[in-house]
């Protein structure tokens, strides 16, 4: 690893990340690294996510996106580097950070053999959401997830779109300031996906910072800023337009910029070729 360290730097809209982590940011990461044995899953990544931003985290399978999220949520300890989440050091004080963030995974992490209501009740208890507050949150989430009147249904019997929205409700029951979403829309039909992104925009409008991984390039276009991961390294970052412009052929106009998907494929193949040449 490491031979691809500076690939494409000249052309990449690699924002100058200041060397010191900033506590004004929702997330500020410096040199974050995770090794499993001799395998480096996340290799010294640096980036900042501003408060209120929708940050898209892209990369092929096995790039290290989930591993990075697990470090940022305080689930696993990094091998090296630092990470400030909502101004707090997540490595030193994971407990403090955990109360202020939410996490939703592709698996939704709902208890399938519990009812809608029981799931909400459980997650409310986990975050110590008090009785009165819970009643209000519950009403809001049931309406948001379109589950009013289905409170006593077993979660297993809900179809995927509803499960997904319930999972979002459960992950935000404590009104987190920062929400991590790891492939929240895989296996969901386009209509439900559109609906889900509307809900994410509502959250963003309320000032919640969103950190989203996805393999859908149309979703990447919804983000304010993107980070591309490849083989554990962060190889490009910037707004969707910046990223597309950086990889446009000479003389391209605003109308002929490559799509995010083209950029993604270009980045991945370029790095793969580099690595093979280096090896």
């Amino acid at each position, binding site marked *: 690893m490491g031979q691809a360290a500076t690939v494409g730097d000249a052309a990449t809209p690699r924002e100058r990340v200041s060397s010191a982590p900033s506590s004004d940011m929702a997330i500020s990461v410096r040199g974050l690294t995770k090794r499993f044995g001799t395998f480096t899953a996340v290799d010294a990544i640096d980036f900042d996510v501003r408060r209120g931003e929708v940050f898209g985290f892209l990369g092929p399978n096995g790039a290290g996106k989930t591993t990075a999220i697990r470090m940022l949520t305080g689930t696993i300890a990094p091998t090296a580097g630092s990470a400030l989440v909502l101004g707090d050091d997540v490595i030193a004080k994971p407990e403090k950070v955990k109360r202020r963030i939410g996490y939703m995974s592709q698996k939704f*992490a709902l*208890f*399938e*053999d519990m009812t809608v209501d029981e799931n909400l009740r459980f997650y409310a*208890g*986990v975050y110590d959401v008090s009785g009165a507050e819970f009643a209000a949150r519950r009403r809001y989430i049931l309406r948001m997830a379109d589950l009013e009147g289905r409170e006593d249904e077993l979660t297993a019997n809900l179809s995927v779109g509803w499960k997904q929205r319930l999972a979002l409700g459960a992950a935000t029951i404590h009104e987190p300031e920062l929400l991590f979403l790891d492939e929240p829309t895989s296996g969901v039909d386009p209509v439900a996906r559109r609906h889900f992104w509307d809900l994410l925009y509502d959250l963003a409008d309320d000032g919640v910072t969103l950190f989203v991984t996805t393999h859908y390039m149309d979703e990447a276009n919804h983000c304010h800023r993107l980070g591309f991961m490849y083989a554990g390294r962060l190889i490009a970052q910037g707004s969707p337009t910046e990223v597309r412009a950086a990889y446009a052929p000479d003389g391209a106009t605003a109308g002929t910029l490559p799509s995010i998907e083209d950029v993604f494929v270009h980045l991945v193949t370029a790095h793969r070729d580099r690595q093979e040449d280096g090896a």
Partner: protein
Amino acid sequence: MNPRHIRLLIWKEFTQLRRDPLLLRLLFLMPVLMLVMLGYVVGADVKNLKTAVVDLDHSATSRALVASFEASGYFRIVRHPNDERALRGLLDHGDVVVALVVPEGTERRLRAGRSTELGVVVDGSDSRTASTASGYSAQIVSAFNRRRIEATGVKLQAPGIDARVRVLYNPGLRMVDTMIPSLIAYILLISTMSIMSQSVVRERERGTLEQMFVTPISRGEYLIGKTVPYMLTSIVQMVTVAIVGRLWFGVPFNGSPAVVLSGLFLFMITAVGLGLLISLVSRTRTQAQQTVMFIMIPSMVLSGFIFPIESMPAEIVPLTYLIPLRYAVVVMRSTFAKGSGFDDLAFQLVAMALFAVAIFGVAVARFSKRLAD
């Protein structure tokens, strides 16, 4: 440690348990099935043993003696060869499993106030049948002697027919009486292990385990919330087995509850630890169940639960010390049948405490480590 979190996790576990038919079956059907199976089949008294009688005495006494064997119900006389030499063939072919040889002159010697021997030949290929048969023979013979003494009213110097085998502690040789106390430990082990591992693996499969550690729930809270419900259910199971054993099978309890409870508590910690360890090495619920079986088979065979350790080959015996169930079986049997106390069982209880600390400690350490990676 937030007690509200722990209560919440316990509530969640019971809510899920109520809705999981597989776990519920495991929980309540299994002890009942095992109780019936082991209580009636394995633990059933050996009866109607096919028996050959060689009566060389042809006397009233010899006939009465044989009759008392037959009347016991344990022996069914199927052959009457005239010659001892025929017995070998009958035993070889499995036509009979027991042979009685009443030597010539039995009645004469008894009348003369001398002692005489009754030959009991037992097919040793099934050690359980063999020990049962010799135990019963000894009892029948001594009862026969007692009746003879009472009938003649004479205090004879010699006891009459010689009975050498003495059966200690379990005079009825009722297998159930030794089976059910050990069964309590066995059920505790198998069900705690399977249910613990199933429920943790299921949470991992569904992603709720990972989710838990993104929330303010701590590892300690999670572990307590996970283990306490299953400790409670195994207590219910054990009590069920004990009550059914006591009331239905009439198993006597002569021991001290404190000793039994200490033993079972230590064993429960071990079982919970094993369940956690299994959940760490298994990716799917099926794998977890297979791993449980992988532990259960040596536990069943090498613990003395079904096969007596005394009759194992000498090279195998050291292995039995590695099986935690071995100690629990001794504790349960000795307290139930003999009323053994803490000092009698010190070795077993210390061994169980060491197993509990080691296995549970390693499980918790590995569990935290695994989550940290």
